[in-house]
C-alpha cells in the first residue's frame, strides 16, 4: 500500500482519499474499504472559515467554536462524536461517512454491499430508518449533513457545484451508492447562505459520543421559508417537507419509537427558531 500526499488538485490521480482518517482507517482495518493507494488530501482541501465559505478540510472542532458558523452547524459539530474525533474529523469527511448499520459495518452481504437483501429489515433494526427504508433500512449518521441541508448549503467539488442534498441519492437495485460523488471527485468547499436563525437538536442514547437516533436541523431563511432536515431517519440526510411530513413515515417494527421522538424534536426546533 502506498500513501500519496499531493499538494494541488491537479496532482490528484485516483486512489482512496483520506483526510482526518476517523472513518477511512477503521473501514480499511475492517476490510470494508480496500485500497492500494491512499491519498492524504490535507494538502489539497481548503481548511478554514471565511465569509460564508468553509473549507471542507475544516475540522468539526474548529467549526463548533467559531461564532461565524450558524448555530445549527455549530451545534451539529459539538454534539457529534468525541473531542478526539472532532479534532481530527473534517467537514467534508463527515458528509461522506457511511451508515452505522451493524450489518453493513460487519460486511454482511446486504444491498448496500451489492447483495440481495436488507438484513436489518428482518433482523436487528432498532436504530434504523423510518423513511425510504424499503430497499435499505440503514440510517444516515451525519449530524452535520442534516444541518447543512437545513441551512441550504452548496458544495464546491474538484469538478462542479451542487446543493448539499444533491450530494446524496437513495440506493436502488441498479446503483447501491448513497452519494453522487464520482470516482476521483473531491469535496473542496461548503458555501453557507446567511440565515436568520437555525438550530440542531439531537436524540442520543447516551449524553455524548452517540450517532443521532434522531437529529433535527431547522433554519429560517431570509425569504421567510423554514427548512427542516433530519439525521438518523433515512439512508441519506432527510429533507422534511414540514412537520406534517412525519405522518408519512414508514417505520419498521422496532423503529416506530423514532416517530414520536422526531415529532417532539421538530416541534421544539421550530419553537426555538
Amino acid at each position: 500500500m502506498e500513501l500519496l500526499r499531493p499538494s494541488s488538485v491537479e496532482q490528484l490521480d485516483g486512489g482512496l482519499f483520506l483526510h482526518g482518517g476517523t472513518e477511512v482507517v477503521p473501514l480499511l482495518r475492517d476490510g470494508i474499504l480496500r485500497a492500494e493507494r491512499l491519498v492524504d488530501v490535507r494538502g489539497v482541501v481548503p481548511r478554514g472559515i471565511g465569509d460564508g465559505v468553509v473549507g471542507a478540510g475544516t475540522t468539526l472542532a474548529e467549526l463548533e467554536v467559531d461564532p461565524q458558523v450558524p448555530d445549527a452547524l455549530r451545534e451539529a459539530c459539538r454534539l457529534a462524536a468525541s473531542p478526539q474525533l472532532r479534532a481530527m474529523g473534517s467537514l467534508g469527511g463527515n458528509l461522506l461517512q457511511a451508515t452505522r448499520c451493524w450489518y453493513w459495518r460487519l460486511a454482511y452481504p446486504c444491498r448496500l454491499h451489492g447483495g440481495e437483501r436488507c438484513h436489518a429489515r428482518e433482523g436487528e433494526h432498532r436504530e434504523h430508518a423510518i423513511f425510504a427504508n424499503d430497499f435499505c433500512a440503514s440510517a444516515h449518521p451525519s449530524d452535520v449533513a442534516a444541518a447543512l441541508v437545513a441551512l441550504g448549503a452548496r458544495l464546491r467539488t474538484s469538478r462542479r457545484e451542487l446543493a448539499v442534498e444533491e450530494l446524496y441519492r437513495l440506493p436502488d437495485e441498479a446503483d447501491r451508492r448513497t452519494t453522487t460523488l464520482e470516482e476521483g471527485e473531491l469535496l473542496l468547499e461548503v458555501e453557507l447562505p446567511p440565515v436568520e436563525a437555525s438550530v440542531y437538536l439531537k436524540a442520543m442514547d447516551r449524553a455524548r459520543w452517540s450517532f443521532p437516533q434522531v437529529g433535527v436541523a431547522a433554519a429560517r431563511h431570509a425569504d421567510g421559508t423554514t427548512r427542516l432536515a433530519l439525521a438518523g431517519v433515512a439512508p441519506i440526510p432527510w429533507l422534511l417537507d414540514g412537520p406534517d411530513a412525519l405522518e408519512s413515515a414508514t417505520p419498521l417494527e422496532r423503529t416506530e419509537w423514532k416517530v414520536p421522538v422526531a415529532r417532539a424534536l421538530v416541534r421544539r426546533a421550530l419553537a426555538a427558531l
Partner: protein
Amino acid sequence: MARLIRTEKEVEGRFEEVWLVVEEDALEQWPAGPLSVVGRPATRKSGPARVRGEARYTADLRFPGMLQAALLRSPHAHARVKRIDLAPALALPGVRAALGPGEAPGLVEEAGFVGAPVAAVAADFPGQAQRALDALEVEWEILDAVLDPEEAVARGQLVGEPRRNERGDVDRALAEADVVVEATYRTQAVLHNSLETHQAICQWVGDTLEVHISTQYVWGVRAEVAAQLGLPADRVRVVCEYMGGGFGSKNGPDEYTFAAAELARRTGRPVRCALTRREENVHAGNRNATIQKLTVGARSDGTIVALAGEFTNSVGWSGWSSYTEGPMQMLYACENLRTVTYGAKVNTPPMKAFRAPGFVEGTFGLECLLDELAARLDVDPLELRRRNYAHANDGTPFSSKNLEECYRLAEKHWERRHEVRARSDAVWKHGVGMASQIWFGGGGPPSYAWARVGSDGRVAIVTAMQDIGTGTRTAMAQIAAEELGLPLDRVDVVLGDTARGPYASISAGSSTTPSMGPAVRAAAADAKRRILEIAAQRYHLEERVLELRDGLVLSRDGNLSVPVEEVVGLLEAAQILGKGARGPNPTGMSVLTFGVQVAEVAVDVETGEVRVLRVAAIHDVGRIVNPLGAASQVEGGIIQGVGHTLSEQRLLDPETGAVLTTSLDAYRMPTMADVPEIVSEFVDRPDEHLTSLGSKGLGEPPIIPVAAAIANAIRDATGADVHELPISREEMLRALEAATRRERRGAAAAV
C-alpha cells in the same frame, strides 16, 4: 497451628465443598474508626507509574522473536468442523505454525456459537496471522441451533439441573394475602469490555512455561494451564503485574492462552495471543440475559407473606447458571418462598462472571417488584423495606448486618424526593427511587503474605496476588503500615508473579481485601514481633514495654525512642521476614454485605430520554481500609450500573446468532457526561466476627442496586413501570404509553 478442614467456599455466589488449611487468626481486631493509616484516604501507590506509562500491562509486553497468534472462529451458531486444511495458511509468508480443532485446549471441533474458536495460527506480524486465517479451508457441517432461552428450557436444553428452593407454603400464603403483585422482568446481555482485551504471552524458558496474562487469578491460571497441558504446576509460572480491567471475565486462562502455549511449544518462540476489540465483544464473556417471573404477596400493612420466582438465565453454550434468585431468597424476611431457576443452554457466546453475577439481575427484578407493591399498598418504599427486615439468613445469624443503619443514613437522601419531584415541568419529570443491596464479599482462606523488612526500615509486602485495578496495592500497604507503625510511603507491595511470592486469593467475588488483608496484617505483625524481639535484646528492655509507632521503636515509659532502621540496620544486608496467613471465616454465620442506593432521575416524557442526576450510595462492608479507594469502587460500580441500566446491550442477529455490537460505537458504555453526581457513604463498622481486620469486599456491591433504584425513580417521576433493561428511549416510551393507557382505564372505571 494449621488445621485441615472440609468446608463450603463461595466465589461469585457459587458454593463448593473444598479442603482448606486454615491457620490461627490470633490478632485482636483494631478499634473501630480511622487509625493512623488504615481508615484514612490514601492515593494510589501505583498512580504515578500508571499515568507516566511506566506500569507494564500484559498488552505492553513484547519479547524478542515473539510471534502473533490469531484464532479462527466459527461463523455458525452451531456447526461441526468436518474437514480443515491448514496447509494453505502455513504456506503464507511469516506463518510459523497452525493448530486445528483439538490441537490445543479450547479449540473445538463442535462450535456452539458464532465466534467459537476452532483453529489458531502464529505468524511474525498480526496482519500475516489474519491473512493466514483467511487462507484456512474449513468444511462445516451445520447443526441445529437454538437462540431463544425459553425455547431451550422448553426443550430441556439446560446447563445443569433446574435449581429449586422452597420454604413454607407459598400457595396458601398467596391465597391469604391482601395484595398480590406479579410482574415479568427482563434483563439484557451486557459485555464487560475490559479496556485491556483478554490476552496472554506464552514462552518456554527451559522446561518451564512462562505465562504473561491479563488475569484476576494468577494461581488459577497456573493450576488450569498445568492441568490442561499436563504439566506439573511448578513448571508453570504466571505473571500479571498490571491489568486493565476484568470485572469477572478474567478468572481463568481460556483458549487464547492454551493456543499461545501450544504454538510457543511448537515454534520455540514466545507467542502472543490478544483478542481484538471485536473479538472481546464476542467471546470474552457476558452478563447473561434473564427472564424473571416474580410474585409477591403481602398483608395490607406491608408485611411480605410470600415470594415466588421463576428465573431463566440465558447462559449461552457453556458457563453456569448464576444465582439470580439470591436476592429474593436473602434480602427480606419471608417465611414462604419458592424459586426455580433454569440455566438455558443456547447457541450464543458463553456467560462469565460479571460484577455480582445474578444479583445485579435479580435485584433489578425484586426491588422493582417491591416498589410496585409499595405503590399498590400506598406504603413508603423505605418503610416497606424496614418492615420486612431480615434479622437472620433463613435461620443462620449474620456475622454482621448494618442495613438498618444504611437505611438511616439514606433518610436524608430519600427526603429530597419532595423537593426533587417539585422540579418537574410538562416535559421533564423528576423523581427519586431506592433499592437495597445484598451480596457476599466475606472472602476466605487460604491466602498468604510475607513482610520483608530491610535494614533501611522499608517494608516489602510480598504476595503473589494481583491488583486488578481496584487499588489493592494501596490497601495492602496501608494495612502493613498500620501494623508496623510506619508511614505509608515506607511500604511497597510486590505482587503478580507465582514464582515470586506465596499463594494468594482470586481477585473476584469482592474477596481481595477480606481474604488478603488479614494475611498481610498477620505477616506484618510477625515481622513486628521479630523487630521488637531484636530491639528488646539490643536495648536490654522487655519486649512487652516496646512498640512501633511513626517509624520509631518506643518504650512505653518514653525512655527509648529510636528509628526502626537503627534496629533493623543491625542486620546489614539481611532482612527480617514475617509470614502471615488468612484465618478462617466464622462458623455457623452468614458473612454478607449490605447497602442501599437512592437515585434521582429526570425523564423527558416526549422523547423518552432518561438522565440520572444523582445517586447516593450507602454500603455496609465492615471496616473501610481506604476511604478514597472505597469511594472510587462505588463510583466505578455506579457508572457501570448506569450503562447497564440505560444504554448497554449486546445485540445478536436473530437469524445467525452473531453478535452485532462488536465495537465501542455500537456497544454503548456511558461516557463521563453520563455520570451522575455520586455520593458515597459507609457504615464503617468492623465485622467483629470476621478476621482480625473486620473488612468485607466492596468490588461488587455498588453495581447491584443501581438499575432498580433508577427504575424506581422513573416510576416515582412518571408513574411508568419499567420491566426491561436497558431503559432505552424505546422501552421508556413503551412504559410511558402503558402507564397512560392504564390511567385512562382507571379514569374510565372511576366514571
